């Protein structure tokens, strides 16, 4: 099992954003996707960001994670004041050191085995080959892929691929974990495995897990539910997660 390291104190702010604005140009008109959003997320929380498509929820986490520069507003993450003041190289370094990412598509290299997918990122973090292998193995075992270490994406199921992607994100032992629609390409059973892994990353590793989704059934596992519509947060409430919730099959 992976050694459980707890980041920060449960309940401490991991990320705090103020007045985020982002506009996109479509044709001759500008669309304002984020209209001055204030946001925060805490260590140990599974924070669910929900909203219909086009509501700006993906843009929000892109701005929070240093992937997409907002026109206005600031993001304070961990001990960094105003992430967007850093050079792009420093922002990359910040993500490399502290952030995990899980996408709707799994984005695994077709040539690499599950173990290599995870190792590759760890090696970029500067781990030695031996340490990277050990950590990668532990992370894959944690997501239940111990018997699949040497399989390539082409011989893994969708759920298994997403678990490799989660292992890749978790192996870095991130303080902040971003997940964008992590279950929407999966059936109920696999979706449940994935959301439980995210739940555990928050509870056991103390990561601030920020999960964007439009699937209301995931709410059951959340500590906090933020609803966003048309670039504005319309609801923000705390919630007591139910660890035994069941995600029924989509079908």
């Amino acid at each position: 099992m992976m050694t459980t390291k707890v980041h920060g104190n449960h309940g401490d702010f991991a990320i705090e954003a103020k007045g985020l604005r982002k506009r996109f140009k479509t044709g001759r008109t500008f669309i304002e996707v984020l209209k001055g959003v204030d946001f925060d997320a805490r260590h140990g929380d599974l924070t669910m960001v929900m909203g219909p498509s086009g509501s700006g929820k993906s843009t929000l986490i892109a701005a929070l994670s240093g992937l997409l520069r907002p026109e206005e507003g600031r993001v304070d993450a961990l001990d960094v004041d105003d992430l967007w003041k850093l050079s792009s190289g420093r922002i990359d370094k910040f993500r490399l050191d502290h952030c995990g990412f899980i996408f709707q598509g799994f984005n695994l290299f077709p040539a690499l085995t599950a173990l290599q997918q995870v190792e590759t990122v760890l090696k970029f973090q500067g781990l030695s080959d031996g340490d990277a292998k050990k950590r990668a193995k532990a992370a894959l075992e944690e997501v239940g892929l111990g018997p699949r270490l040497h399989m390539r994406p082409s011989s893994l199921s969708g759920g298994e691929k997403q678990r490799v992607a989660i292992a890749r994100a978790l192996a870095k032992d991130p303080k902040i974990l971003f997940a964008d629609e992590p279950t929407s390409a999966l059936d109920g059973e696999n979706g449940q495995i994935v959301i439980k892994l995210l739940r555990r990353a928050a509870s056991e590793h103390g990561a601030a897990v920020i999960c964007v989704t439009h699937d209301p059934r995931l709410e059951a596992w959340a500590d906090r539910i933020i609803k966003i519509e048309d670039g504005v947060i319309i609801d923000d409430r705390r919630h007591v997660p139910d660890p035994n919730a069941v995600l029924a099959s989509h079908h």
Partner: protein
Amino acid sequence: MSLALATLLYEWRRYMAAVMALALSGLLVMAMTGLFIGIGRGFTAQIDRAGADVMVLAPGAKALGNGPSGVPRRFIPLVYRHPEVVQVRALSGWGGQFQSIKEYDPTESAAERAKRGAPRQEQVQISVIDTAPGAVTIPTDYSDELVNALRQPYTVAVDETALRRLGVKLGDKALLNGNTVTVAAVTRGYPNMMVAQIVVSRDTLRMIGGPNDSSLRVGPLMVKLRDPTRAPIVAAQLNEMGGGQYRAWTRGELAQANEASMFEEGILVVIIGGCVVLGTIIGVAITWQTLRGAIMANIKEFASLRALGVGMGSLRRIIMELSFWVGIVGVLAAVLLTWLVSILALAGAVIIAITPGMLIVVGGGLILIAMLSGMLSLGVLKNSQPADLLR
């Protein structure tokens, strides 16, 4: 195994076009260069396998035939003055007309006779050996049988690769400068693309009217030493004795100078230079586009690495490493292709020589082409926007 190498091995089909482009560029350059070196080898074969330890040529000459390489006859006793010299013989050569003879059945019709083709007439280069045992002019790879056969008057030896060109086979009669001669032997390993070479004994040469013992100039001198290992020293001493009237070469020196002198010909440099330019352009263009396509195919995966904090510099290094490996595979494929082509060519009596120096230069060039293509395709990495994955 690194990401770049694993990707190349696993998705090799995707990179095949780049590898083939590199291999063909390499083949183009290596085959052309090898061809010219091979042609040169046809001329140097005589030097490489000469029985002489030292050769004395006119100053400035770098080949046995092919220009004024001969010296005045009086140099023979001059060279004998060196105490370590045991034998000096001139390598005489001569040009000639060689014509095959066809025996016709007098009852044949004219049409049937026409079908068998006319006798062939070819310009040939005649070179000479002394048939005395241990003669310095006998190449090292000649068998006793071959020398014995040539000892008969009016006999010639023809290289196997020239048989078809001359229209003869072993035992055939032919006309050499108007004299009937017999093809008494066939040599192997003396292909010459430019002109067929035939070998006769010094006596036969005299009998068919060639240069004889009374001519004032003779061909290059073939010198045998008491101790062949002292050739470099003796050659230097001979040069000193000659005071610049001639140049004494060891076998190795002359072979090298001979090969190098090929590339003093302007046209060769133009042809090979053209091949290099063409090969580079084709190689870069195809490899670049292939790499671009391959990177685009994995752009989402690269973007996800970016999201996890892997910097642009690291991604660039992955691409450069990938292009390096593509280059390595390209070099291997080029060598394999060139080797196959050279085998094919040899079947047609054309030598494509592959030298280590050429392999290093062309191999290095191909890797450079691959890396250059990799550098050109770095631009597409800009498309690896992790924000695009968030939708």
